[in-house]
């Protein structure tokens, strides 16, 4: 894609400007659609209809919400730290959006094909916690402070199981580059890492460990993106709205867009690592389904499926308490992740 | 035990502090007790073997007549399934009653409410302040001669 654009424009800089545009469009469309999807899915699960007045099936609902939020007053608490208060939402959104730079949408389209792609992604999402902490502190409000502190504890703790469970796959693949993950899983559904990756029958012995790695990765990323059952920073029945308490209008919308953007980014990581990324499940049997344009379709479908599972879990499970959250992380996830790592490492060595 | 037996038992232990027992229908029978001794009598009612009144159902203040307030205690025994009503009369000029919040924890908030509504002071109460009305309200609303105040913090009260 880079070469193609350079050939057209003959200039590196224009290429750099054009490359992120489709991703930006996708993030905006996805965030708009995800808000609506969440409301509709939750409505169907709760035996009601959900938004259906703005446009057929409520399609224009989020756009109307954005219009409404644009014309709201930016209320800043008097004794808050104004500079930090204003910048916090944008920090959170930036961190979420920067993660998209390494998501492999297709074999020819990826923002930047770093050979440290995965590592970069985890580093960037941990920057998001700074935005939340700034929001909590600068609101000059005890409830927001609680939300901010809890979110720091939660996100920083859950970085570890995330990284460890991703490491299991890294060991098998031998690379950190996101494109290489997808390329290595080519050839059909049996080569996906969730089933052990390419290789002989003996690879199947790793399936339980890889399954549990995928599960740990999924749960930890739920905690990273503050989704129920780990939505303590925004626990809206204890801390009123937690971190977002004092924000109104567009700044509030930024937090939400950041959360939905992160949801998809994280689903993208899970599909890349375990479910083949942009590889079609039919492999080379049907070559049309493996063309670069269809690959975008496969990637999006898999990502959207995990987003659906996240939404589903949100409306089913109650919330865990803060200390129980820490217990789950340190006492259960991390030892399990280590066991997986050890088992997979053992298999690879032998 | 019926009300007369309880009355006799209390009289043998506390003598003059126990007033007469009223049993005419359709009244729930009750026993008058001297205001000063209510704390000691409550301990006895709670701890004595044959009585064991381990819970206080209700504590109400009453604007009894022209000169007196009454505090009415409804007691119930879970262990022996019996009830008792005890009344204490205090003069309006000096409405002071010893507290029984150390005997039954229920009494804590009920006594605060009686203070708030009638102005009956409960001696020895750990935290006697208004509970339903705002802290700086004037007057005691459930008294028969209560006139609502004109202004509260600059807002006109009667509308």
């Amino acid at each position: 894609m880079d070469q193609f654009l350079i050939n057209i424009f003959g200039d590196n800089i224009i290429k750099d400007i054009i490359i992120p545009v489709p991703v930006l469009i996708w993030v905006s469309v996805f965030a708009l659609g995800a808000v609506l999807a969440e409301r509709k899915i939750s409505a169907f699960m709760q035996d009601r209809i959900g938004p259906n007045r703005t446009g057929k099936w409520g399609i224009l609902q989020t756009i109307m919400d954005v219009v409404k939020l644009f014309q709201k007053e930016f209320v800043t608490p008097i004794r808050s730290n104004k500079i930090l208060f204003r910048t916090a939402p944008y920090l959170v959104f930036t961190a979420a959006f920067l993660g998209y730079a390494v998501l492999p949408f297709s074999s020819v389209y990826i923002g930047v094909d770093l050979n440290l792609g995965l590592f970069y992604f985890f580093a960037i999402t941990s920057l998001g916690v700074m935005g939340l902490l700034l929001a909590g502190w600068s609101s000059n409000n005890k409830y927001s402070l609680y939300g901010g502190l809890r979110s720091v504890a939660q996100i920083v703790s859950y970085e570890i199981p995330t990284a460890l469970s991703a490491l299991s796959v890294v060991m098998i693949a031998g690379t950190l580059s996101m494109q290489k993950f997808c390329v290595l899983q080519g050839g059909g559904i049996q080569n996906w890492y969730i089933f052990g990756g390419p290789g002989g029958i003996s690879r199947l012995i790793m399936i339980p460990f890889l399954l549990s790695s995928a599960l740990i990765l999924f749960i930890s990323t739920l905690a990273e993106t503050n989704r129920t059952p780990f939505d303590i920073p925004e626990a809206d029945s204890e801390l009123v709205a937690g971190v977002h308490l004092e924000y109104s209008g567009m700044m509030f919308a930024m937090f939400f867009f950041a959360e939905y953007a992160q949801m998809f980014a994280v689903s993208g990581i899970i599909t890349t690592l375990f479910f083949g990324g942009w590889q079609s499940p039919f492999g080379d049997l049907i070559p049309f389904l493996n063309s670069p344009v269809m690959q975008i379709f496969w990637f999006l479908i898999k990502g959207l499926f995990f987003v659906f599972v996240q939404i589903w879990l949100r409306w089913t499970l109650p919330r865990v308490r803060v200390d129980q959250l820490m217990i789950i992380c340190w006492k259960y996830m991390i030892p399990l992740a280590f066991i997986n790592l050890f088992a997979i490492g053992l298999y690879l060595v032998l | 035990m019926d009300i007369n037996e309880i009355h006799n038992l209390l009289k043998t232990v506390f003598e003059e502090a126990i007033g007469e027992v009223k049993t005419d229908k359709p009244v729930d029978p009750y026993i008058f007790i001297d205001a000063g001794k209510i704390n000691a009598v409550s301990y006895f009612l709670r701890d004595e073997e044959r009585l064991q009144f381990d819970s206080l159902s209700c504590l109400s203040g009453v604007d009894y007549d022209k000169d007196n307030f009454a505090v009415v205690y409804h007691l119930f025994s879970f262990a022996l399934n019996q009830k008792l009503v005890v009344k204490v009369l205090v003069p309006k000029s000096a409405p002071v009653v010893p507290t029984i919040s150390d005997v039954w924890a229920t009494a804590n908030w009920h006594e605060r409410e009686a203070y708030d509504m009638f102005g009956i002071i409960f001696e020895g109460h750990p935290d006697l302040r208004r509970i339903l009305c705002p802290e700086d309200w004037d007057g005691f609303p459930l008294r028969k001669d209560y006139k609502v105040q004109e202004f509260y913090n600059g807002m006109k009260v009667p509308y």
Partner: protein
Amino acid sequence: MSELRTEEMVLNMGPQHPSTHGVLRLQLVLDGEIVIDVKPYIGYLHRCFEKHCEAMTYPQVIPYADRMDYVNSMSNELGYAIAVEKLCGIEIPERVEYIRVIMAELQRIASHLVALGTYGNDAGAFTPFLYCFIDREKVLELFEITCGARLLYNYIWIGGLSHDIPKEFIPKTKEFIKYFRPRIKQLNGLLSYNKIFIERTANVGVLPADYAINAGASGPTLRGSGVKFDLRKNDPYSIYDRFDFDIPVGNGEQGTLGDCWDRYMVRVHEMEESLKIIEQALDNIPEGDVQSAVPKRVKPPIGEIYVRTEVPKGELGYYIISDGSTNPFRVKARSASFCNVSLIGAMSRGHMIADVVMILGSYDIVLGEIDR
């Protein structure tokens, strides 16, 4: 920066808060996330019920009694009507008794559905709230075809009822019973035995039985601690002694005896028992005229009476003093939530903020009843 104190923080779970079930102010003194003390402040919804009663006639009090615990209006009216009837010595027809019991038990189910739904909401599970309210809609529909109102009825009058039940009431109630039994099982599967919910509520807010009795707890709060006491069985009023039902009691199944989960489960089981009572009553309603014993003027003789009934929240007691006129001399309503909420200070020490929310929800308070 130097004057930042770090030992204790005072946080107001102020009058406006999504989880305090009304306008209740809780002043929390916190050390980090651990609660050192909780001081409840009430009175934000005080509407001078007792003072109003002295200016109105006895039948005019009934709409005011409705509005005390607005989630459970039938039960409030029932207690008051029984008290005044005993004072006046009015004998009411059998039909009235049966219908009153059916209404009170339907109201119990509706009230517990609110309690359970909002409890799940406090814990973060948003879906059971809507499922409970779907079922509650069916109960409110039954009330609506009888007396026209969904929430505040003015239905149980002194000496009788305001309207007789329409002929479609009995078939519809039978249909509701058939519909509702499997829904309780569904609620159990979704919320009650959910591991995360159990983690949030088991071993939290343990209330020892002797302290509960001493502090005046009643209803599911008391029964959750293992005390098998229900006014419908131990001190029967109306015709409850003719029905066969059980008293669910907390038994420490998950966690300690007397924790939030026990109180929650007592409510779930009570709904099942209410269904039993309604079934037995529906089959046996005698014929009669519900308005035949309603007096033209209620003028009780001089006297006083204290009557307590088992409302879904606990024990509601009416202490009525009559001075022989048509207006009551003093009406005191001893509400269940008033005594239950005073326990929150002692029960929350040493827990975290999230637990305070769960403890408060397990007491199932309604501020209308506390403040009257």
